[in-house]
């Protein structure tokens, strides 16, 4: 099983070295000595000890320590968090501030003004969740719930085709031999792994979210649920704001449970609104204050001059930071200026 090594909470370089040296399964690591591993991987002994410590820890966790069935110790939880799978955004700096990407088992809210790239990021994630395990991905499927009608198939196809090219190249880089990529993926296959639902009212939206539990039980390979946007249908016809708050919080709760139960990532896209406070208009994410407690992580996308930036507004585990990103023909990518910066640094060396 190649996937086993990918589950280890070790750095990507170490993982890459393990795989290229042929250590793909946990059992292949269980009997190897420290010095042998260090030599095979061309790393220091202490690094090898560290890897083996993680491997043995992993084995014992698999055996299960829980005192009460269903209960977890904080140590187990920490371990679980470390090995938590993430979905890359295809922008290194954005991944960096997100701690590796959008995390599974959590609800992440992403908000920003129209045209900043929320839908683009949503589509990119729906494609990236399909990255095969030998390239460090989840090989999952995505559910895309479109409430606004901005999901354009031609755009998804563009991003999917760029993704296929990138994966082929990464594969060649990872296994320097001539071994061809195991299966020829096509844009069509990527589209077929996205379950698309178009929702035209808030009642439909609530009904669909209630139905997701059943749908995901039948489609266990779903690793990502995107709602683009969670807001749209809740900004009309709600004279009773208390009712809106109740409906929204029960929806958020369901999504949170879904994320935990099936260890999948939930991404909610939100709009920006002007809020009237103390005599002036200020920008904030829509749906009000009580909603802002509903998500585990909150990311705000904004313009900084001519550049797009993302900012971690709220997260229990990430520090608040911001990073530039860009929207290109191929999808979400590193920002142009950060490429320029690194080029400049190289040329000045």
């Amino acid at each position, binding site marked *: 099983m190649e996937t086993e090594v990918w589950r280890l909470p070790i750095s990507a370089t170490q993982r890459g070295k393990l795989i290229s040296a042929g250590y793909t399964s946990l059992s292949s690591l269980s009997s190897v000595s420290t010095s042998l591993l260090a030599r095979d991987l061309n790393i220091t002994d202490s690094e090898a000890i560290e890897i083996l410590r993680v491997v043995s820890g992993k084995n014992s966790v698999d055996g299960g320590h829980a005192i009460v069935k269903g209960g977890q110790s904080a140590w187990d939880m920490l371990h679980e968090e470390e090995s938590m799978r993430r979905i890359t955004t295809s922008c290194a700096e954005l991944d960096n501030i997100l701690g590796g990407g959008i995390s599974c088992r959590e609800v992440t809210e992403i908000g920003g*003004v129209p*045209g900043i790239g929320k839908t683009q990021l949503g589509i990119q994630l729906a494609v990236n969740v399909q990255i095969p395990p030998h390239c460090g991905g989840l090989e999952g499927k995505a559910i895309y719930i479109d409430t606004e*009608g901005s999901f354009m198939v031609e*755009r998804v196809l563009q991003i999917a085709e760029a993704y296929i090219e990138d994966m082929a190249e990464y594969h060649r880089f990872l296994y320097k031999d001539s071994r061809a990529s195991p299966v020829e993926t096509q844009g069509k296959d990527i589209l077929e792994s996205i379950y*698309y639902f178009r929702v035209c*009212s808030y009642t439909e939206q609530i009904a669909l979210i209630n139905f997701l539990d059943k749908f995901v039980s039948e489609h266990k390979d779903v690793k990502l649920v995107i709602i683009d946007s969670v807001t749209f*249908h809740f900004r*009309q016809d709600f004279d009773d704001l208390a009712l809106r708050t109740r409906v929204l919080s029960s929806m958020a709760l369901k999504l949170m449970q879904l994320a935990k139960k099936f260890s999948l990532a939930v991404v909610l896209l939100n709009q920006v*609104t002007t809020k009237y406070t103390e005599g002036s*208009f200020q920008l904030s994410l829509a749906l009000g204050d009580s909603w802002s407690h509903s998500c585990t992580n909150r990311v705000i996308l904004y313009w900084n001059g001519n550049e797009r930036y993302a900012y971690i507004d709220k997260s229990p585990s990430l520090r608040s930071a911001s990073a530039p990103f860009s929207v290109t023909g191929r999808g979400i990518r590193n920002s142009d200026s950060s490429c320029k910066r690194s080029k400049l640094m190289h040329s000045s060396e």
Partner: protein
Amino acid sequence: MKPETLLLPTEKCTLGCPVMDRCLGGGIPCKSITEIVAESGSGKTQLCLQLSLSAQLPPSHGGLSASSLFLHTEFPFPSRRLHQLSVSFQSLHRQALNNNNPSDNIFVQSVHSADQLLDIMPKIESFLANSRTQLPVRLIVIDSVAALFRSEFENTPGDLKRRSSIFFAISAKLKALARSFDLAVVVTNQVVDFVGSGEGVNGVRVGNLGSLYSSGRRVCPALGLAWANCINSRVFLSREETVNSYAGRGEDGYVYMQTRRRLCVVFAPHLPYSSCEFVIRRDGVFGVEPQVQEDHGSSR
């Protein structure tokens, strides 16, 4: 509930000009709302009229083989201009159309207020569903949506809230119709002069362009941020008066002015930033092929 198949491409409706179509990735997409925003006299209405005609073309010519519903909120409806355009349209596409008068396939309805628009939505729906028209209706134009909100609402927090709730109600209804009847929906919007500093309204930048200019003034789309959340794509038409450098100052002492018009994609889920210059002629609105060598000072 079942997921939908994604293997069908989104249909597009031609604007009646290959240059502008290329700029918009093939035309106006079905199943979503496209906004055309511009100051008055920039060609919004003319572009909408031309679109209503082009929609009648068969898919082989980039159209939808469809008739259209034109909701106008500004008076009077420009029937004379429509007639003019339809005559040249008919002579241009004689083979593609069967010999009907193209104006017969454009249904016109006047709307006076936002509430009235919401009230007639069920009527529109039944018109679309039991259409006894020769061609099915697959294009709705609202020209302009801004005029519906011009007078009734005060600039107070309460009224703004009520106003944005109506925006979302209108948009949701239009999107639902667009989806069930596979419609292209086009709305036009006006601009307001930009007051203040920074980017956009209240310092908010929306879309590709940090700032929009038309007739030498800095402008921003009317109806604010809430409305911008209600549309899928936004296209901006700008105009700039420039002195015609060829004619220069004529012998009669007059300065010859030339209007340079430009169409820009402000935001769209399926398009990168792109723009093209266009002209308005007697026979319609046409994009200008970008010249390899810019001969005289471009307005970029």
